[in-house]
């Protein structure tokens, strides 16, 4: 043993350490190939080069899995795009018309407007439907809200005739009224809050109606007798809610007001 190569000695040590297992494995009998082994090998050689067991460069599982995954991806893409496109159907189209612009009697008139007017406050003046010439609206002086005005109420916004345009905060007096290129103003609905702005009322909605917080001087509301503290329940007998809106051709005639526990009806003095 001492003359043996150290390398071989190491191998012997390893085998010695596992001698029980090695001895057990050594008891295994050997199997022999069948008698026709050589003949079968020659037959295979005669048949040609050995075919690879894996015919395709892709393993069999991937040959099925890849098309399946692609199919799921494509189908999922179409399903998701159809789902989101159907969701957008319910979205209402954006309104193109602008709210009517109503001019007030004169620049000196103090108007109390809400601190944060909505963009719909920028009203567009209604055309005079009795007049075929739909040019840009002209600026008129003098008092407005004249009931003797021969302009048909049905053709004017809210039946009002005012000269001073209501402008959003920050715009100067010579700001151009918004109309389209043909001077035709476009109509749209207005909210209750905007209506009250036009009438000269600053209000907030509570559970029962619109509570008047302030009344502008020399406004329709003041002339009609609306007072601070009144609760406006209806306009033209139309019950008001926080989201009530009126058409562009709306002509305000009366207000139903609750005051000191009593319900009264006020005719608007334009």
């Amino acid at each position: 043993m001492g003359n043996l190569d150290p390398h071989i000695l190491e191998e012997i040590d390893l085998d010695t350490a596992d001698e029980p297992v090695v001895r057990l494995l050594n008891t295994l009998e050997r199997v022999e190939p069948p008698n026709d082994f050589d003949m079968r090998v020659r037959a295979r050689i005669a048949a040609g080069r050995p075919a690879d067991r894996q015919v395709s460069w892709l393993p069999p599982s991937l040959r099925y899995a890849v098309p399946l995954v692609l199919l799921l991806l494509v189908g999922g893409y179409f399903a998701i795009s159809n789902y989101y496109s159907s969701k957008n159907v319910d979205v209402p189209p954006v309104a193109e018309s602008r709210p009517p612009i109503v001019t007030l009697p004169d620049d000196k008139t103090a108007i109390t407007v809400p601190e944060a007017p909505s963009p719909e406050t920028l009203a567009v003046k209604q055309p005079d439907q009795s007049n075929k010439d739909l040019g840009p609206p002209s600026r008129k002086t003098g008092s407005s809200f004249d009931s003797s005005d021969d302009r048909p109420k049905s053709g004017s916004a809210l039946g009002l005739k005012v000269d001073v345009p209501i402008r959003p905060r920050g715009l100067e007096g010579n700001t151009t009224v918004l109309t389209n290129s043909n001077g035709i103003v476009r109509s749209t609905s207005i909210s209750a809050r905007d209506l009250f702005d036009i009438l000269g009322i600053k209000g907030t909605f509570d559970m029962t109606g619109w509570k008047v917080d302030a009344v502008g001087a020399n406004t329709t509301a003041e002339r009609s007798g609306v007072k601070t503290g009144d609760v406006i329940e209806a306009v033209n007998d139309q019950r008001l809610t926080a989201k009530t809106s009126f058409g562009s051709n709306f002509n305000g005639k009366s207000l139903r007001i609750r005051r000191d526990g009593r319900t009264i009806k006020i005719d608007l003095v334009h």
Partner: protein
Amino acid sequence: MAFDNIRSFGSGGTRTSMPEEKLSDHALIEATRSGDETAFAEIMGRYRGPITNYLYRFLNDYEEAVDLAQETFVRVYFALDRYHTQFAFSTYIYRIATNLAISEIRRRKRRRLMSLTGLFQNEDDTQVEFQPPDTRPLADRALVDSERSQMIGRAIAALPEKYRLPVILRDVEGKSYDEIAEIMELGLGTTKSRISRGRGLLKEKLQHYL
């Protein structure tokens, strides 16, 4: 004959290189390249038994072992032009057999996975798990049928692939550590550690027989 040394093995005795054996194998290969069919037949005569036994111990399936052993020789034949004498021929042929066995194991795993998913059938539409009984008599079948041999065979087959191969090459085929390292294309230290680990796992499985 040098070939007899492959058949017989002791209890882990000394193993030395056999230049005559290598020279003889190389000479046979050269003769086969020249068209000498009897030289190739001699090659088959020397290695069909060890290769079949090696593959049988690895796969624990006689039919498959014979099939892969035949495939091994077919591949050797068609790759004669590429064979270089830097390695011993036994290393070369065992490496081919090892690669075929590993491919077969992986193919079995893929077939098992497909059958578990229940989505795919085998390509030739046969049941992939069915193992037809071996009706052909083995030369030493009476001995092989002993219960202990079967248990040992099953224990070996249950070893992880990376431990099973070197253990069989060392303790069944009687290969040296160096040759095993060449066959498996591993470092010597890795080869020894894997053999040691494989033996340890067998020891746990075969406690009853130790």
